[in-house]
């Protein structure tokens, strides 16, 4: 994985020193909150309902065990012994003291991490497929591109005060595990017929109040032009994006209102002007960054591990976990392990310091010192020998992280909601907890099969409810929490925005409503192989409406 060079180290150290000075000026009263706000935002510091919150970037989701250990240390020393992994490959600490934040940033810098641009109207932490460099279907590792983008976007002087935040995601496989098409810019690394690498570029995707699927703006962009093209898009957006209404300020609205063709023309004109300039990527620099992400030294081992096959026969829970949480690796004899941070009744994405330490140890010992965080709020061990799976499982079980529910209905995404977030209109964590309890039965979960359930505590959609197969949005109706349900959303390569199914449900009805939806699916599916999403696409909303609102049907 990427290691800081002298330049990166100096840069981050200088940033920390700069912020330390700013915090001191704030604490002494020299800086008002008003003047301090833009500065703290560019350093990932939010003011939440009860306290300051620090959001730390895990660039493109990749980290090593010493970094994970540092996150555990920070949670233990400066917070309440836990952290929250978000849907943007970040981790949030909910209770740090402002005066401690410079020290936290310095601790982070010591392991090559930072919180730069995890908030504010700027280019945010660049995200990527969490299976990058490991999955069997990969064309090329997206992370070198994400790293170059991370660098270029870091304190880009022109793009720190954009109309709104700006998110970029990169994938390198035909299957989209990063919801790439729901980002302001989505990039897919591809190979052309000559075997050259380039990118397919999508623009104007996003969730929030007005969910939109990204539009294809360029089918083939040579890799050397990546920065010029992104700079051209950002420049056009910065100049023309709306600033009169923050709900219409994302680039998706500009694309929608201007029309893709006209916007594309502006972008292409600017791109043609700058493409042969200073931002052109030299092959050797791309190669040097790519080298950091070279695959680890894999052993030549058989595709099947007999000991594991035996262990599976002996231990049904283990077999279930392997079946659900281990994905196919590009290297024979290895697997990708998803550690679901979704134990029954737990807050999705939360991990204690002790759990983070366990994950760090497992990454170090069994996964070539690599870990990932996913936008689905799970932690990934990307390179595990199949013969080590039992040891990994046992350790996870002991640490309470062996939920065999990756991709199942209880692998819920939920934003922090009203329990923490100042913008929330409803709680989301308690809803997730109740649902996870209701569907706790593993046989039932397995019978239901792949089902993505996503919950947001307000219209900002941090819980990605629009792309949930079942999405839940908490709203406020005259002081009461009400939960609106959308069906049929999908964040993968067959991107779709879920449709609102009807009137919302009260907090004490929503779990039953989800159960009704699931039961309707089970009774209507063609076979066990027809997933919820496939069945919904075939059936449409009507049967679900009929089941949810029977009285209305009678009327």
């Amino acid at each position: 994985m990427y290691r800081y060079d002298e330049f990166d180290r100096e840069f981050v150290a200088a940033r920390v020193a700069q912020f330390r000075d700013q915090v001191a000026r704030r604490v002494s009263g020299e800086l008002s909150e008003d003047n301090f706000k833009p500065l703290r935002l560019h350093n990932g510091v939010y003011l939440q309902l009860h306290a300051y919150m620090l959001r730390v970037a895990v660039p493109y989701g990749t980290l090593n065990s010493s970094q994970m250990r540092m996150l555990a240390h920070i949670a233990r020393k400066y917070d309440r012994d836990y952290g929250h992994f978000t849907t943007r490959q970040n981790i949030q600490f909910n209770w740090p003291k402002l005066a401690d934040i410079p020290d936290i940033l310095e601790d982070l810098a010591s392991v090559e991490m930072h919180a730069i641009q995890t908030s504010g109207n700027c280019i945010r932490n660049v995200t990527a497929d969490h299976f990058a460099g490991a999955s069997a279907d990969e064309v090329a590792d997206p992370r070198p591109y994400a790293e170059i983008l991370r660098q270029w976007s870091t304190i880009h002087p022109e793009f720190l005060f954009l109309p709104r935040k700006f998110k970029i995601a990169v994938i390198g496989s035909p299957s989209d595990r990063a919801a790439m098409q729901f980002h302001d810019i989505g990039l897919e690394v591809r190979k052309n017929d000559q075997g050259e690498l380039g990118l397919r570029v999508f623009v104007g995707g996003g969730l929030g109040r007005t969910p939109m699927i990204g539009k294809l703006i360029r089918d083939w962009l040579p890799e050397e032009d990546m920065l010029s093209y992104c700079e051209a898009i950002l420049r056009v957006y910065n100049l023309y994006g709306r600033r009169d209404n923050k709900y219409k300020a994302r680039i998706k609205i500009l694309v929608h209102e201007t029309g893709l063709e006209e916007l594309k023309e502006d972008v292409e004109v600017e791109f043609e002007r700058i493409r042969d300039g200073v931002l052109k990527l030299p092959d050797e620099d791309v190669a040097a960054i790519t080298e950091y992400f070279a695959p680890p030294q894999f052993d030549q081992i058989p595709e099947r591990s007999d000991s594991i096959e035996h262990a599976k026969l002996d231990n049904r829970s283990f077999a279930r976990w392997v079946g659900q949480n281990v994905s196919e690796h590009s290297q024979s004899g290895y697997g990708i392990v998803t550690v679901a941070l979704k134990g029954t009744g737990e807050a999705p994405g939360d991990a204690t310091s002790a759990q983070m330490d366990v994950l760090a140890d497992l990454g170090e010992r069994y996964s070539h010192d690599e870990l990932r965080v996913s936008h689905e709020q799970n932690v990934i061990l990307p390179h595990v020998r199949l013969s080590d799976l039992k040891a990994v499982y046992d350790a996870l079980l002991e640490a309470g992280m062996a939920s065999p529910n990756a991709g199942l209905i209880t692998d819920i995404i939920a934003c922090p909601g009203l329990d923490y977030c100042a913008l929330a209109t409803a709680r989301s964590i308690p809803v997730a907890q109740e649902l996870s309890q209701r569907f706790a039965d593993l046989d039932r979960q397995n019978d239901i099969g792949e089902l993505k359930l996503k919950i947001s505590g307000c219209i900002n959609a941090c819980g990605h409810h629009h792309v949930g197969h079942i999405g839940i949005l908490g709203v406020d109706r005259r002081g009461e929490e009400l939960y609106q349900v959308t069906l049929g959303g999908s964040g993968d390569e067959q991107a779709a925005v879920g449709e609102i199914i009807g009137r919302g449900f009260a907090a004490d009805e929503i779990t039953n409503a989800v159960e009704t939806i699931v039961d309707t699916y089970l009774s209507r599916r063609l076979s066990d192989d027809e997933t919820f999403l496939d069945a919904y696409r075939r059936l449409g909303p009507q049967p679900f409406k009929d089941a949810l609102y029977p009285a209305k049907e009678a009327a």
Partner: protein
Amino acid sequence: MSTLFVDGAVHEDRWVSVDGEQPVPEGEDVIVSLAVFEAQSHALVTRNAGRLGVYLEAGDQIEAIADHLDHIVLVALDFPSFADGRAFSKARLLRDRYQFEGQIRATGDIRIDQVSHMRRSGFDAFQVSHQPTIDSLIEDKDSGLDLFYQPAVGDSAERIAGKNWARRAL
């Protein structure tokens, strides 16, 4: 009261701002609003004495003056709020796309922590009202770093080996 900084030093502002109905004073250096410029562009670019500057509000586009840049020696770009970053890209376009070599002056809500970003986007003059920012600029503290992950306008900074996009201030 605002203080004008040009190339890092305090400057007396001899330019006269012209907006609305008032006539353009003969022989003076003037900064006219875009509306004035558009109404009288021919007269303005053919004046015999007095230099010409144009003031663009955040919503005005550079294209509106692009054809006349040969006759314009100063462009003032407004920041109605520090959070409105449009002028960064406009300065960039002026320098890069139109090779504008005159003064680019930032006006409006300018905070010290943005000055270094403005410089790297092409600004070389700052009309500042925010007192702490004025104080810092007088002390020559712009709070910026010397390391950059991207090339900038008229860059004389050193390139970083292996990172063609990064720069270190000389």
